């Protein structure tokens, strides 16, 4: 399922001749579709993409699909078996040694390229980031194929890959103030989706303090007199004591 002219391996060799410094690897697909892909190093990805678009043999003028994928850190366990002969003369025992090592994760952007002029494809190319936390920049392919514009914005939004050279890299689907990247595998949903700081966490913390204070022997009324900030729900963002002691609202909380 590559081009009608050459196999993906031939294309890889041709690319390596054209770009000797580039890093081009063949990624095989074990599934029944057998759509293999080419992995490009980030440094030369855009040059190669331009070549793929403008080469007369390939003419991959249409980038159909850009997908972000998250590959988190993976713990890989290797089991080595050693045979220990029994000194008493019995059958040899097998001792298993397990070693685990961490395979670092990365984010990946996959592009499905077709040629509308020559009507062939897909050629699938992939670009990976160095890691998932601080080195997440890869070159944008929007200057090569305009169709990546919204799709790369979406990947930036949902996965956090930063596309260098994108003309308008903003969040696409989530709102601008949103902080996290929801399509990542380790994303944890917040308890509430309000983007404004809400009183919930603060108030819950105060309620807990209040409950422990009541359990210590004091009544609710004296507690509010002693520290009015504890049960003030009117200004939860202010520090304790900023609320007026004259207007406690004990009904706001149940110990």
């Amino acid at each position, binding site marked *: 399922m590559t081009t009608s002219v050459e196999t993906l391996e031939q294309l890889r060799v041709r690319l390596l001749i054209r770009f000797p410094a580039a890093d081009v690897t063949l990624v095989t697909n074990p599934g029944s579709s057998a759509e293999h892909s080419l992995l490009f190093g980030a440094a030369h990805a855009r040059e190669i993409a331009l070549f793929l678009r403008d080469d007369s043999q390939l003419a991959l003028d249409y980038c159909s699909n850009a997908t972000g994928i998250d590959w988190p850190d993976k713990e890989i366990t290797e089991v080595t078996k050693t045979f220990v002969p029994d000194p008493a003369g019995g059958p040899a025992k097998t001792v298993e040694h397990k070693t685990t090592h961490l395979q670092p994760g990365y984010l990946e952007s996959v592009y499905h390229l077709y040629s*509308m002029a020559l009507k062939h494809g*897909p050629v699938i190319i992939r670009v990976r980031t160095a890691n998932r936390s601080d080195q997440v920049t890869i070159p944008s392919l929007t200057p090569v194929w305009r169709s990546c514009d*919204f799709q790369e914005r979406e990947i930036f939004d949902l996965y956090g890959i930063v596309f260098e050279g994108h*003309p308008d890299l903003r969040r696409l689907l989530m709102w601008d103030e949103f902080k996290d990247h929801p399509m990542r595998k380790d994303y944890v949903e917040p308890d509430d989706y309000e983007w404004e700081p809400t009183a919930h966490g603060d108030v819950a913390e105060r309620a807990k303090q209040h409950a422990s204070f009541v359990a210590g022997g004091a009544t609710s009324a004296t507690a509010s007199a002693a520290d009015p900030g504890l049960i003030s729900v009117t200004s939860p963002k202010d520090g304790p004591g900023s609320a007026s002691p004259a207007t406690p609202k004990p009904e706001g909380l149940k110990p």
Partner: protein
Amino acid sequence: MSPPLSALNSQLSTNGAPAPFLPSAPGPSVRAVHDQFHGDLLEVSMGPQHPSTHGVFRMVATLDGEQIVKLKPVFGYLHRNHEKIAENTTYLGSMPYTDRLDYLCSMSTNWAYALAVEKLSGQAVPDRAQYLRIIMAELTRLVNHACLVGFLFNDLGTSFTPLLYAFREREKIIDLFESLSGSRMMCNYQRFGGCRVDPTPEWLKAASTLVDNFPRFLDEYETMLTGNEIMLARTQGIGRLDPQHAINAGITGPVLRASGVDYDLRKVDGYGFYPRFNFRVPLGAHGDTYDRYMMRILEMRESVKILQQAFKELPEGPIMDPKAKIRGFRPKAGEAYGRLEGPKGELGFYLISDGSPNPYRYRVRPPSLINLTLLEEMCLGHTIADSVVILGSIDIVLGEVDR
């Protein structure tokens, strides 16, 4: 006070609007009507609650007088992270949810997803199911294009009469869908390896009669509207899209073919049994709104041809592959990208399996979203009223844009 237009032009090229990617093709330009007068620029936010944006879509247009000099689409009002939800459920579990992507064309969306999963798992599909899929997909195309044409006239200001003519036909088809699948719009009809329900001979006869009568509706509609003077004045030369820009921006479907690019996946990929069918791919010459309208009318006529052949040749046999695994479905590790020619453009599903019952990665390639890439370029220099018509002619569904 606003900056003069020349300053705005330079701002446009650096701030937001990307420079033309293909220098050989003439890019759309901002025309100034009165060079000597520079009024204040006016920013108009259309949507998200606006009847002409076809859902919760928002356009932020900057106007110089009445001309649009900048237009930014804003998405996300219907975002529910469809892809994440699908990654947390089984393969079959997402099938009813694909109905909600393009809620006018659930049959095609089902098929696109089934196509991708069948490619991923190497699943075969029996002949009768292949024919049924084509019947459902082409009926869906009729539904979608009839709706689109009706809404386009609504956007032109005809206040519902042409829309209801189109909806009358649509209603007949979705009545058929309801009697077959149990639901008018959320059909949930396709399965991996076949279809869910076998239509009765009565159903097929009713559907065949409907299809035979459909060209009469098209003739009636065209007699009243295609040559209408106001229609011509409002659509010809409006929102031009040149083929080089369209290809580069990944525009697909009738919008691309209206610009004269011969790219129809039914011919190019030949998925399903489409190579057995005899039909033509209509192409436009100007890439304007009128061509996009005519493209829909002509495609409906071709769909009628395909349907008539399908009803004639529909073979007997099973509608599900007997070897298809329904419970405990786990495709082996790998990935696949399945795509088909949806009524709105190339609809694709990219799936990565890690051998578990849930897809590791589930990606929808939404034609509605990607066809909006050049909305700004198509609207520049036109009025707000024209931008409504241009948006209507692109044909979007927000369930699919925002996912």
